[in-house]
């Protein structure tokens, strides 16, 4: 079974939920085929499952290069890819760029990991010095590196400690007014020198953290879902209590191993 099929199974909206549902949340996964390596599919899986557990109805749109962009989008996710994957999506990204920028300006929550984080920045400068323009939604610039930055990471963020795994060769610098997603407690982060990891502008988050990042950090998942729910329904988020015992134990054990 392909990853794509897995994702559509996971996300199938249950029709009998519709009557009792608190609302429908449209999730768009950008380029699941080209840009979903390192288990980033798990973020989509986590979001759709938690949306359902909170009493809402998820509808998952898989956006592939060349396809029309979904008309309704409340929450966007993107993952890491290989260089070949990035090359495959660049043309489409140019076509949907204005739509993505206006969704970001409207406050639609987005989580862009690794390669898609880089593409959401101003530019990626290759080792050879070639400047590849990005969407400019996040004020960051990434310089290609010969050396990869690889290993487990712990961050301090607005939603508490966040654990994950980084694996990138790009070294990212934040623009003057750009906030990071988190502060590195263990690991390398954006560039290994300024202690920052990722970037956050409004409700758009870019980060290098795989893991995948959402399952083990449910507070982050729920903060994205909460914003999406408010935008989808026009009402405040009405969360349901969740059983996050495994996630909390998995996370705190990593924090204990790496930081304390």
């Amino acid at each position, binding site marked *: *079974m*392909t*990853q794509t099929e*897995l994702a559509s199974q996971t996300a199938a909206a249950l029709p009998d939920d519709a009557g009792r549902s608190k609302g429908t949340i449209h999730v768009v996964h950008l380029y699941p*085929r*080209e840009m979903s*390596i*390192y*288990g*980033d*599919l*798990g973020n989509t*899986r*986590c979001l759709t*499952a938690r949306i359902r557990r909170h009493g809402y109805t998820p509808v998952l749109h898989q956006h592939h290069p060349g396809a029309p962009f979904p008309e309704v989008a409340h929450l966007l996710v993107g993952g890491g890819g*290989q*260089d*070949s*994957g990035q090359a*495959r999506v660049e043309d489409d990204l140019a076509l949907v760029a204005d739509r993505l920028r206006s969704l970001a300006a409207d406050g639609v929550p987005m989580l862009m990991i690794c390669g898609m984080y880089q593409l959401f920045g101003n530019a990626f400068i290759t080792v050879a010095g070639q400047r590849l323009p990005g969407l400019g939604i996040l004020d960051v610039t990434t310089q290609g590196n010969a050396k*990869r930055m*690889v*290993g*487990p990471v712990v961050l301090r963020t607005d939603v508490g400690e966040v654990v994950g*795994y980084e*694996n990138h*060769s790009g070294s990212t610098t934040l623009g003057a007014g750009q906030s990071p997603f988190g502060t590195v407690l263990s690991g390398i982060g954006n560039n290994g020198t300024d202690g920052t990891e990722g970037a956050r502008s409004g409700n758009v988050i870019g980060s290098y953290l*795989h*893991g*995948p990042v959402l*399952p*083990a950090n449910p507070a982050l998942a729920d903060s994205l879902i909460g914003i999406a729910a408010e935008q989808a329904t026009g009402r405040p988020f009405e969360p349901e209590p969740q059983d996050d015992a*495994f*996630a909390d*134990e*998995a996370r705190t*054990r990593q924090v204990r191993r790496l930081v304390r």
Partner: protein
Amino acid sequence: MLRTTTAVLAGRAARLATRLRGSGSALPGLVAERVDPRFLARTLAHLPHGIVVVSGTNGKTTTTKMLAALLRAHGLRVFSNPTGSNFTRGVISSMLREVPLSGRLSADVAVLELDEAHALRFAATVRPTHALLLNVARDQLDRFAEIDHTAALLARLAEQVTTGVVLNLDDPFVSRIGAEAGDGVEVRYFGVDASIADRLPELQEQDVRFAEAAPPVAPRATDGLLKPHDERSFEVRFGAEAEGGRVGPLELQQRGLAAMINATAAATTARMLLGDRFDAGCAAQALREVRPPFGRGEVVMVDGEPLELVLVKNPAGFTVALGTYGSTPVATMIAVNDNYADGRDVSWLYDVSFESLRERGVALTSGVRAYDIALRLQYDDVPVGAVEPDLARALARFLEEHPAEPRRVFCTYTAMMSLRRDLAARYDLPGIGEEAS
């Protein structure tokens, strides 16, 4: 010569020392390599039937074992690295057991399992005569960074080969390499018969490097194709209509489609190496007798009931393992560590579907990342009985709570080694790193 003799002696001493300490199998090789950097080349030179490197992401150990068995059944003396210690130093370490002090190996052919990066390093010292390239899948991306990079490593390995390469017809990352083999190097393929082509997606990665699909390769009479008859029985056909002959029907001791494909790859390569000496009946019998390498569907009897250890290390492998064993649900434990040899990034668990375990559930999760795999299972609605990160305690509890039924443990590499050590101590099993032949 003196240097080589010294290297052999130093390496053997290190081997004895590590065995006494009960640790890894690469250190003796490291010692010998330090004393004589050309040790490997010197020792392998002049093997009459050449040096065969088996590489790719999944199935190296199983396929190497099958190929060695096929060649031995045809009367060749085979040097191999059977411990799953598939780095260059591991090869030297295994060699130290077999070489006289002159350093000249008394074998007809070497069949070596090497991972992609180490295969290239090896080829820089000793040019292989043949290479069998199995597949490219996501595996320990923290080591190889990218699938495309791994594919490029295999292509460069193929360029180093002097005589012949055998490639996976169905894996575009590998089949494309055929165009890059050097002048005078013969290219053969192994693959699956058209009747089961629909099962390939479960084994393969998406190749998004090119806008166009790889050009199809029409199998010739020297290319081996897997034709299954049922879940266990299959034959290898040479050529689409078996115009080049067939091996089987036969059943392997190891279950599953992946093992059948490995057997097809091994048979195709053996036929290339042996030429007219290749005997289909002899080959079928040799494949029937190959025992699963440890941790690859190995069954251990514990208190009169089978306990199966299944090594899992990447999404394709885990998915195949679940597909292979999912049809007979048994008591299940999953143990995940995140040491270097396991792959330090456990993200890949989210690229495996665990739905086949939903009905029966998973009794216990264990290992350093016990809670991460429990969390992963929760997202597939697979019930988890308990979480016990300590492997020894988890194994004891698993065996105690499931005494009178078949049991299965899916485990990452270092978790498997730890569980085996534990089992060996308690149930008189063959020692770690030694073949249960």
